[in-house]
């Protein structure tokens, strides 16, 4: 797996590690059951703080991408892409709930909200085609 840390990026280093591990899992470069580099080895090689890597690995575990087994290492969890799909679904639900809430404030009926969604959807697809 390739991990590149940018020093000029405004994205914190732990976030950079997280994103790259995630995309490696998504693309299939990292397979189920594969082991991530040990925390301290990675910190040494990238010359970054052990706590930074710890944070990245812990958050990856919380989000269900890897599993940390005490003393054995950090393993890639099964079917990462499905997990991501679930995560994205949850995010859509969150945003839609927010939209519903705002629609209520604006006293917008449901069919109007549907119509708005359709318009935005078509506009976006149209933009992408053109």
């Amino acid at each position, binding site marked *: 797996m390739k991990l590149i840390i940018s020093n000029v990026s405004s994205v914190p280093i732990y976030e950079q590690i997280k994103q790259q591990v995630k995309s490696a899992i998504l693309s299939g470069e990292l397979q189920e059951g594969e082991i991530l580099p040990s925390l301290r080895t990675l910190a040494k090689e990238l010359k970054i703080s*052990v706590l930074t890597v710890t944070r990245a690995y812990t958050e990856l575990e919380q989000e269900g991408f890897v599993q940390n087994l005490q003393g054995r290492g950090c393993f890639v969890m099964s079917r990462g892409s499905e997990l991501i799909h679930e995560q994205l679904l949850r995010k859509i639900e969150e945003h839609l709930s927010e939209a519903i809430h705002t629609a209520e404030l604006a006293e917008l009926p449901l069919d109007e909200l549907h119509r708005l969604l359709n318009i935005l959807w078509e506009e976006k697809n149209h933009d992408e085609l053109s």
Partner: protein
Amino acid sequence: MTNYLEVMHLSKNYPNFQLHDISFTLPEGYIMGLIGENGSGKTTVIKLILNMIHRENGKINILGKDNISEESAVKPYIGVVFDSNCFCEEWTILQTMKRISSFYETWNKEKFLSLMNRFQLDTKKKIKALSKGMQMKLMLAWALSYDAKVLILDEPTSGLDPVSRDELLTILAEYIEDGKHSVLFSTHITSDLERAADYITYLHYGELFFTGSKEELLSMFCMVKGGREELQPEQQKKLIGVRTFSTGFEALIKTTDRACFSGMAIEPVTLEDIMIFISRKGE
């Protein structure tokens, strides 16, 4: 997690300088940066840890043992690198090793010689003929050759070129890799610590300004930038240290205050920003 170094309520009075109630702990397996402007008390803290000067108040434990009452038990655990050479200048490296290494029970001659090889130090050379970077590497190799558990470095990178500084950081990263060694590293070149340090202890005029993880310190503050006229009086009060110039201003703020500055450019801080603006606060 065991604490390799515990400093508790440490105080020291000099006629013109007081170190006041300093406490911090360094856990096993991590690197801590000791930062602060010149004269903030970094070297005083290190001398107190090494029992080189008398402390007025407080307590220091190294691997759980008191650094004064159990000094001889504690010292073999500590390795030290100062900013200037502490070996006899007229001796060669080989002579130094032959004459002093027998004081160390756990001395590992093979390890020392292999480090000399790795650092490309000629053991037949006199200490005084070594460059500053080479002298630093010699002190470092020395500490590694008796397997010190805690490495204490006082301004090791001042006066070193970027190549030697990078080498030092590589060695430190290797040193703590097994999780059984810790490093206390005083410096005012904060870029050295920006990536490698896990914890930061920040002294300001003899007082403890912060101790904790580096990420925590960096997340406490933000930089805000904008035009001079944009700044409202109530915003002015929130600034911790500010630099104004003809076309605008930049200032350090607490991250919790960032909502008061919506519409202005807000950026993450570096350790250097924090040090510069905190010291400007008093002006």
